[in-house]
């Protein structure tokens, strides 16, 4: 397409594309891994309401950069749900702030809380009416109160713990709770993906629980068994997405037969297998009935009912991507001076006697290129206005090492024995060194 454009426009497009790609290029020092929590895990860890709505995906981000941290901006999740093989788009998970709203409702709607609150309500009611009926009602109220106390004590309400765990581990892009991966460190968080959108996925259906055991030839004779065949994907890998998909589809070329001319016949096999009606969409050309498309109502399989195979296939079809940027922590931008080594006399004083044009001292620290000068100030008398400045020289691009030169005649004018060392930046701000 660019070939038809003028050269300057084509070059501009190429340059702009390269620029965009460079901005979004994958950093070589950041890696991530994901693990999908099944329904019981999610339910116990975060609560039943959340488990009913979301698939919790644990993400671990590693930052191998030793100089810069990594700020996670977003977590995106894609599922290649199309059985024909087209790739799924990436979408962001639900922000923790939204998921937290569901967690808060668990204090009322969680099965445990419903049971405990109902029992407590009945107990209160019995206690209230006991004076009217006395006798057995009073006894029942007493028993129920005791039971409720034990019920509440030993069947613990975990909703607060679950809410805390969500706050600790749930991912949020909000600026108030961003996820930061420290230098040469790692961070774990959990992204929440709405599960309802996948409940009709082909991998959720019962067909995926069929296990491949071998193949037959066209005469029906077994020619390969999975347990003995060296090419057996079952024996080799445990789960095979292609085979699972094959067991869920009925368009195997080996079974290809002439299509029925009557749409009613076409739908019959489905009718015999599924109770729902099969909808037939006829082609626009009434003369070509072979191209009629068949549809049936989807069988929704909620996440809590997914089988092990369904979870394993979903894992294979899923991809998580972490977006973020390297950042330099504020502390790393600040200058620090860890050591100042000057030519000394045997007793440790700065050697002024042998100084010629300059007394040169070696500085070690961090971000020394941001230091404009080093200032010496009387440590014994803070009111002494006399100071001596030394000029900084950073060489070789190493900002952790520098030299500072003092004029000997300036140092010889100093009146005190001890002087504090200050760094002075380009704005003239002094910072006392340790």
């Amino acid at each position, binding site marked *: 397409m660019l070939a038809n454009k003028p050269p300057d426009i084509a070059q501009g497009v190429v340059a702009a594309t390269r620029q965009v790609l460079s901005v979004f290029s994958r950093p070589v020092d950041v890696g991530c891994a994901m693990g999908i929590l099944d329904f019981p895990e999610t339910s116990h860890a975060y609560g039943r309401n959340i488990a009913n709505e979301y698939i919790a995906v644990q993400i671990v981000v590693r930052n191998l950069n030793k100089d810069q941290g990594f700020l996670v901006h977003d977590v995106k999740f894609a599922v290649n749900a199309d059985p024909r093989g087209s790739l799924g788009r990436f979408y962001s998970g639900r922000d923790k702030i939204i998921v937290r709203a569901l967690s808060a409702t668990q204090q009322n709607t969680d099965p445990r809380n419903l049971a405990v609150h109902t029992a407590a309500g009945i107990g209160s009611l019995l206690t209230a009416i006991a004076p009217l009926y006395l006798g057995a009602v009073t006894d029942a109220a007493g028993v129920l109160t005791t039971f409720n106390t034990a019920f509440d004590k030993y069947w613990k309400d975990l909703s607060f713990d679950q809410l805390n765990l969500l706050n600790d581990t749930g991912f949020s892009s909000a600026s108030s709770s961003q996820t930061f991966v420290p230098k040469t460190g790692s961070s774990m968080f959990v992204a929440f993906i709405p599960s309802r959108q996948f409940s009709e996925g082909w991998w959720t259906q019962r067909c995926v629980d069929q296990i491949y055991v071998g193949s037959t030839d066209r005469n029906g004779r077994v020619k390969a068994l999975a347990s003995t065949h060296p090419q057996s994907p079952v024996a080799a890998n445990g789960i095979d997405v292609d085979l699972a998909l094959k067991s869920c589809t009925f368009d195997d070329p080996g079974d290809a037969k002439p299509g029925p001319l009557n749409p009613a016949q076409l739908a019959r096999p489905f009718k015999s297998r599924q109770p729902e009606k099969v909808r037939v969409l006829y082609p626009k050309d009434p003369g070509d009935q072979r191209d009629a498309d068949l549809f049936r109502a989807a069988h929704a399989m909620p996440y809590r009912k997914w089988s092990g195979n369904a979870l394993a296939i979903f894992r294979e079809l899923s991809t998580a991507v972490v977006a973020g940027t390297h950042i330099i922590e504020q502390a790393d931008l600040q200058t620090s001076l860890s050591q*100042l080594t*000057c030519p000394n*006399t045997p*007793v*440790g*004083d*700065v050697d*002024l*006697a042998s100084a010629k044009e300059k007394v040169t001292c070696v500085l070690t620290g961090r971000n020394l290129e941001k230091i404009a000068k080093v200032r*010496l100030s009387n*440590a014994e008398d803070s009111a002494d206005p006399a100071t001596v400045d030394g000029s900084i020289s950073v060489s070789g691009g190493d900002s952790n090492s520098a030299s500072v030169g003092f004029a000997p*005649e300036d*140092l*010889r*004018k*100093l*009146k*005190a*024995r*001890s*002087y*504090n*060392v200050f760094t002075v930046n380009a704005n003239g701000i002094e910072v006392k060194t340790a």
Partner: protein
Amino acid sequence: MLHFDLTPVATKYSPAEMDLTTGADAAHIVTAKGYHLEPVRKLNLTHSSDSVAVDIEPLSLGNENEIKFVLKVADLKKFGTSATKLTLELITDKNIHVAVPGDSLAFTGKK
């Protein structure tokens, strides 16, 4: 924190040589240059062979970098005729004796 030695240091004397054959009343002004010279109160001349010392008051209180003394030929007679090289020593107001090291700080007199 950096530490500095505040001991007086004289690095240069002038004149380094002087002719002492002139009259006994003759006097020479010797200027010592260096740093931290403010507390210097005396100049002590010694000669190792006869252990004779002569204290000379400064011409005036020195400033940081310079101090002047008046050397009279009569004072130097105490060293006899054999001494041609005298060692100088600065004495501060706290009676700290600071030897002048090195050849450049040696005082040479001719008789």
